[in-house]
C-alpha cells in the first residue's frame, strides 16, 4: 500500500499549493548548489586562463583565448606527473590487496561462530575511530628498523592495513545477508568450503565489493597525513602533499593558471568516478555500516 502511494507521488502532476510550501527549501538548496558549482566552474575557467587575467579578475572573459598549455606545464614541469602516478599505484594496489585480505576475513566473521569472533569484529570497529596520531610514531620506528622508509612499499602496506578494518566491517553485512542455501548446495555437490568462497560467495557479494573498492580507492587517493610522513621525498609523494608543495612553489613563481590546472588534475580522477557512480557511492556511505 505504502509503496503504491510512493509511486503515485512520483507521477503527481504539478500542484501549485504543495510546491509553494517547498519554495524556501528550494531556495536554500539552490543557493548552496549554485555556490558549489560557481566555485568549481571558476577554478576550471582559471585553469584555462593566464596569470595576468586571473589577477585582474577577468578570468571568465578569456580575452586571450583558452590556454590548455597550463595543463602541460603543470603536468610535466612541476612533478604532478610523478605524484599522480604514485597515487595511482598506491590506490590501485592498496585497494586490490585490501579486498583480497578483507573479504575472506569478513566472510568468516559473518558466517561462522568461533571463539574470538565478537572480539575481532569489535576491535575492527574501534580501530576505525582511532586517531592516526595514536599509531603513527611506533609505525615510523618499525619502518625505519625494517629499512622501509623512503620506499613505496611502506605506504602501500600502511594503506592496506589501515583500510582493512573498515573494509572488513563494511563487507560483513553483505556476506551476512547471503542465503545459506548456496553453501549447502555447494557442499552437497562436493565443493570444498574454500572453493565455495572464491567461486560462489565472492561473486555474490560483488556489489558490496565494488562499493567498498571505490571507497578504498578514493580514501587512499585523497590521503594526506600518512603520505606526508612516510612518503617524505618527492619521489614517493602522493597527490595530497605533492599538490601542496606545488602550490607553495607556484605561489612564488606566480603561475596561477598552472596552479589551478594542477588542482584540476588532482581533482579529476575521484570526480569522474563520482559522476559515474554517485548513486552507488551515496548508498554505500550509510548502507553498509559506518564509514570511519
Amino acid at each position: 500500500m505504502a509503496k503504491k502511494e510512493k509511486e503515485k507521488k512520483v507521477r503527481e502532476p504539478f500542484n501549485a499549493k504543495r510546491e509553494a510550501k517547498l519554495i524556501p527549501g528550494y531556495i536554500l538548496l539552490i543557493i548552496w548548489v549554485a555556490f558549489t558549482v560557481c566555485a568549481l566552474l571558476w577554478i576550471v575557467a582559471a585553469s584555462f586562463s593566464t596569470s595576468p587575467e586571473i589577477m585582474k579578475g577577468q578570468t571568465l572573459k578569456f580575452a586571450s583565448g583558452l590556454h590548455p598549455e597550463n595543463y602541460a606545464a603543470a603536468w610535466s614541469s612541476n612533478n604532478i606527473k610523478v605524484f599522480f602516478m604514485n597515487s595511482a599505484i598506491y590506490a590501485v594496489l592498496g585497494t586490490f590487496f585490501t579486498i583480497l585480505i578483507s573479504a575472506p576475513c569478513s566472510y568468516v566473521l559473518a558466517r561462522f561462530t568461533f571463539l574470538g569472533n565478537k572480539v575481532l569484529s569489535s576491535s575492527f570497529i574501534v580501530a576505525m575511530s582511532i586517531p592516526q596520531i595514536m599509531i603513527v610514531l611506533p609505525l615510523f620506528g618499525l619502518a625505519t628498523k625494517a629499512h622501509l622508509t623512503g620506499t613505496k612499499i611502506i605506504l602501500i602496506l600502511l594503506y592496506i592495513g589501515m583500510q582493512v578494518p573498515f573494509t572488513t566491517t563494511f563487507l560483513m553485512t553483505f556476506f551476512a545477508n547471503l542465503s545459506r542455501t548456496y553453501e549447502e548446495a555447494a557442499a552437497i555437490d562436493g565443493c570444498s568450503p574454500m572453493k565455495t568462497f572464491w567461486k560462489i560467495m565472492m561473486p555474490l557479494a560483488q556489489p558490496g565489493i565494488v562499493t567498498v573498492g571505490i571507497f578504498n580507492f578514493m580514501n587512499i587517493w585523497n590521503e594526506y597525513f600518512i603520505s606526508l610522513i612516510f612518503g617524505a621525498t618527492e619521489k614517493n609523494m602522493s597527490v595530497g602533499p605533492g599538490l601542496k608543495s606545488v602550490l607553495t612553489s607556484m605561489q612564488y613563481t606566480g603561475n596561477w593558471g598552472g596552479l589551478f590546472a594542477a588542482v584540476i588534475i588532482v581533482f579529476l580522477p575521484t570526480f569522474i568516478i563520482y559522476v559515474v557512480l554517485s548513486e552507488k557511492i551515496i548508498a554505500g556511505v550509510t548502507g553498509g555500516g559506518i564509514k570511519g
Partner: protein
Amino acid sequence: MIVVFLTPAVILFLGIFLYPIVRTVIMSLFNIEGVTDPMKLWTFVGVDNYVKLFNTSLFRTASFNLFRIWLYGGLIVMTLSLLFAVILTSGIRGKKFFRAIIYMPNIVSAVALATMWLQYVYSPRFGLIKSILETLHLDNLAKVQLLDNEHKFMALVLAYCFGMVGYHMLIWLSGIERISPEYYEAATIDGANKIAQFRYMTMPLLKGVFKTNITMWSVSSVGFFVWSQLFSNVTADTQTITPYVYMYAQIFGGGNTVTERNSGLGAAVGVLLSLCVVIVFTICNKVIRDDDLEF
C-alpha cells in the same frame, strides 16, 4: 579454513593497530629523544609529559582551537546537514541531484578543496565572497580581509564545514528514510502540522542517528590537520594550529615550534586525543538513549 582466512587480516591488525597503540601509550610515559630510538635509550618520566603539555601555551592554544572547531563547526554542520536532510525528504523534485552535489566535496582531495577556498573564494582581489558582497552593495563588508589574523579562524572553520555537511546529511537522511511514511500520514490525519511532526516524531526517532553523527564528527575533527596546514603560512600559526599540527611539528618537522626533542610528548598528544574521542562517545551513550523507542 577459518584460520587461513583470518590470519592475514589479523596479522595486519596486530601490526598496524594493536602493537602501535600499546607502544604509544607506553611511549607517552617516557622521555624519548628520537622517534626511532630503541627502548633502552628511553628514560621513564611518568606523567611528566602530560604535565609539560598542559604547561605549554602553544599546546593549550592548539587544544582550544580544536575545541572551538569541534563546537562551532559541529553546531554549523549539524544544523545545516539536518536542515538539508529534512528539505530533501519533504518531497522536493531533483532530490538525487541536490544530494549528489551537496555530498561531492567529500570525494575531493582536501588539498584541492582548501586551495579553492584560499585562492578563490576568500581571495581579497577577485574572490567569490567579495564579488557577491559587492553585487549586494555591502562595500564595507567586501573590504574585509577574510584571511587576516582576525578572520582566519572563522574562514578556516567555514571552509571545513562546507565539505563536511554532505557526509552528515547522508547519515541524517538514512535515519529519516527509515521512519515509515505511514506514521506521518497518521499524524497528518490527526491534525499535526509539519513542524509538530518534526518536533514530536522525527526528532525523538532520530536520537540514535544523532549519536552516530556526533561520534563521526568528533572522530573526524580530532584528526584536523590538512586544513590547518594549508591555512597557515608558518608552522605555529596560533590562529589555526591544532594538536595534530603541534605533534607533527614536534616530531617530524622543525619549524618554529620545537623547543625540545621529545617523542614522548607526541605520544602523549595522541593519547589525549584518543581519550577525547572515548569521552565524547561515553557521554553520548549516557545522555542519549535510543533503546527506549521501537519503530
